């Protein structure tokens, strides 16, 4: 089975779907001739034609608005928002139109579109190239919100998203496009080569949306996380030699609360980790949902590690980023509560 990084896996997903389904079109800023600023759509226009892989004007609201109309005319657009930080001009179209069309028209009209967007920090991108707004979208009823953490899931989930009859916001943690990242910026960059989750089938397969994955089994505590932070948490757990279970949420909406709650009920301890800011973040929803189901199994308060509640700072990136050390401190505290 070929080894792919996330960029190649995502590219392969779109290539497979453009080939398989004539309704699929790809559109976004720089996605055509150039192949995208992260190369995720590299070669697709050459392969499938300029009428199916479209460079667009720089207008995110226009990209999403036009995609809604394409859906109404039978296409399955895959729209790229170049950075999640630029998704806000499309917010009205996403919230008031994409998310509501099926509901308001009693399913007469639907918007089965996929919005791909690179998110997250750790790339020296400052506040306009580093945000993690998944919680903002998970809060909106009527859209699915997902984020893969490895090449195998990335391809399978993107194909599932494109085939899904509901709209999907597909967040791509760009720090791990080219290799897993344990949160230590000074170490040489790792590649996906040789990583078991970089084994990606060439052709069509899906990874269902709405299912969490147990990335590492354990019994002493549960780490509930997603995206880049899966890798940071694995490194932190390993460094401390803890028998921790690491659960990759993968899908914020629909949320696989059963898998998550089963893990926490088993271990009795829970740390929630995400890059996004903490206050009102998706971790708050996780914490509340876990507490509702697992209260009598909990042996310690649920803890959260998240980005500080500040804008994403350029110069202080590694002070901001919830890296390995911060996760380790939280894990120590969580285990310490046992004593």
């Amino acid at each position: 089975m070929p080894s792919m990084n996330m960029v190649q896996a995502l590219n392969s997903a779109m290539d497979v779907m453009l080939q398989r389904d004539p309704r699929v079109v790809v559109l976004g800023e720089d996605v055509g001739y150039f192949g995208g600023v992260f190369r995720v759509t590299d070669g697709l226009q050459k392969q499938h034609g300029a009428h199916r892989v479209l460079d667009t004007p720089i207008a995110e609201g226009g990209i999403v608005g036009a995609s809604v109309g394409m859906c109404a005319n039978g296409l399955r657009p895959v729209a790229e928002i170049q950075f999640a930080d630029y998704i806000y001009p499309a917010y009205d179209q996403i919230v008031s139109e994409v998310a509501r069309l099926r509901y308001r028209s009693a399913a007469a009209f639907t918007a089965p579109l996929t919005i791909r967007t690179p998110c997250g920090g750790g790339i020296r991108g400052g506040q306009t190239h580093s945000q993690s707004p998944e919680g903002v979208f998970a809060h909106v009823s009527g859209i699915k919100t997902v984020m893969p953490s490895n090449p195998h899931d990335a391809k399978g989930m993107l194909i599932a998203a494109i085939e899904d009859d509901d709209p999907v916001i597909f967040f791509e943690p760009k720090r791990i496009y080219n290799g897993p990242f344990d949160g230590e910026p000074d170490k040489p960059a790792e590649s996906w080569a040789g990583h078991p989750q970089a084994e990606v089938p060439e052709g069509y397969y899906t990874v269902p949306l709405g299912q969490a994955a147990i990335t590492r089994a354990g019994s002493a505590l549960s780490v509930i996380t997603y995206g880049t932070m899966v890798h940071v948490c694995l490194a932190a757990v390993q460094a401390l030699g803890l028998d921790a279970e690491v659960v990759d949420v993968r899908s914020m909406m629909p949320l696989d609360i059963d898998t998550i709650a089963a893990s926490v009920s088993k271990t009795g301890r829970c740390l929630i980790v995400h890059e996004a800011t903490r206050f009102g973040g998706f971790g708050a929803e996780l914490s509340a949902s876990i507490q509702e189901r697992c209260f009598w199994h909990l042996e310690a308060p649920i803890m959260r590690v998240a980005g500080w509640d500040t804008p994403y700072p350029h110069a202080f990136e590694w002070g901001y980023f919830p890296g390995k050390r911060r996760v380790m401190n939280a894990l120590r505290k969580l285990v310490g509560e046992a004593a």
Partner: protein
Amino acid sequence: MSVSKLHVPAVPARPGEQPDFSYVRLSAAGEVPRPDPTVAVGETASLAESLVCVLDDSGQALGPWNPKLDTEQLLKGLRLMLLTRLFDERMQRTQRQGRITFYVRSLGEEAVSVAAAMALSDRDMLFPSYRNQGLHVARGMSLVDLMCQLLSNSRDMCLGRQLPVMYHSVPRRLFSISGNLATQFPQAVGWAMAAAIKGESDIAAAWTGEGSTAAADFHHALTFAKVYRAPVILNVVNNQWAISTFQGYAGGEQRSFAARGPGIGLAGLRVDGNDFLAVHAATAWAAERARAGYGATVLELVTYRAGAHSTSDDPARYRSREEAEQWPLGDPIDRLAQHLEREGAWDAARHAALAAELEQEVAAAWREAISHGTLTEGPKLDPALMFEDVFKELPAHLREQRDELLAEISALE
């Protein structure tokens, strides 16, 4: 030293002041030339500032834009406009009686919708705003279905989820109306792009008010339409008022809204929106242009919102009461009726008989609609429907919430 001074657009007449429509630039009926629909964009620049007008003050149809419709078509147009108006009147009264929560009339703007729908093919996809009920009437939607939506009753096409007026129809090719302004504009362009990607001949048409041309989505739509030469008609219904805000605040001073078209590289036509023949001809021109692969046209339909914005505002508080009667482009129904009279195909007696017949039709539809329930009486929608269609499949969390609500309701019973 000179200092900057903020320009505040002038409003012609607030309550108690004399109406002043001197700012509305008019052209004589028949005066404006009609180029071939495949003309270069630049050639439309003057058409975007003049006014395409066919009917003169005496009801005579003049000039190259006369669509030369047969009498049957004209009578149909008159009937549909009058039906739209009487439907509106009845629904307005119904709201005042507290039977529906909200309503938006299209009083004075009926030609904008009815003539356009008649000029387009039934396969063309329409993206209406909330003041285009003439499209739904002209496309033959049943009044009962429209009323059931207004009532949010057991036969509401939206299953009780939408404010009144937010209709849709897949078979009639009418897109779901949003309460958010101008969102339908880029959507119509995307629909048209898809038609072109698939190599089909259907086109799209969208409507928005002049106030909404200030919204980003309007500009997205024009840019995308220009870039991909999308087969779409982008209608700006300039009815002078956005609730209490005069069109000058949308940028209408000294510059037409149609001129946004040539400004961005699209054809633009400024049209007498109260002239059924002019709206029909301009729409047909833009449709022919779009179908021939020459791209979109921005059509400004100059009209006057003779009623309130909605049932929630009183225009006497922000504009002169005398404006509607002094509006220089008259009333679309009166003008078409006058033309038909002049042609010997219409008279006051027939008009009165038609109005009486249509009133009966509306009244009968209303009786049938309320038999399916109102918000407060009769058959009700199942509250469990609240949870359907958020997603295609009902997810676990919504199933739990639905069951909680149903338990709450059954505990009350």
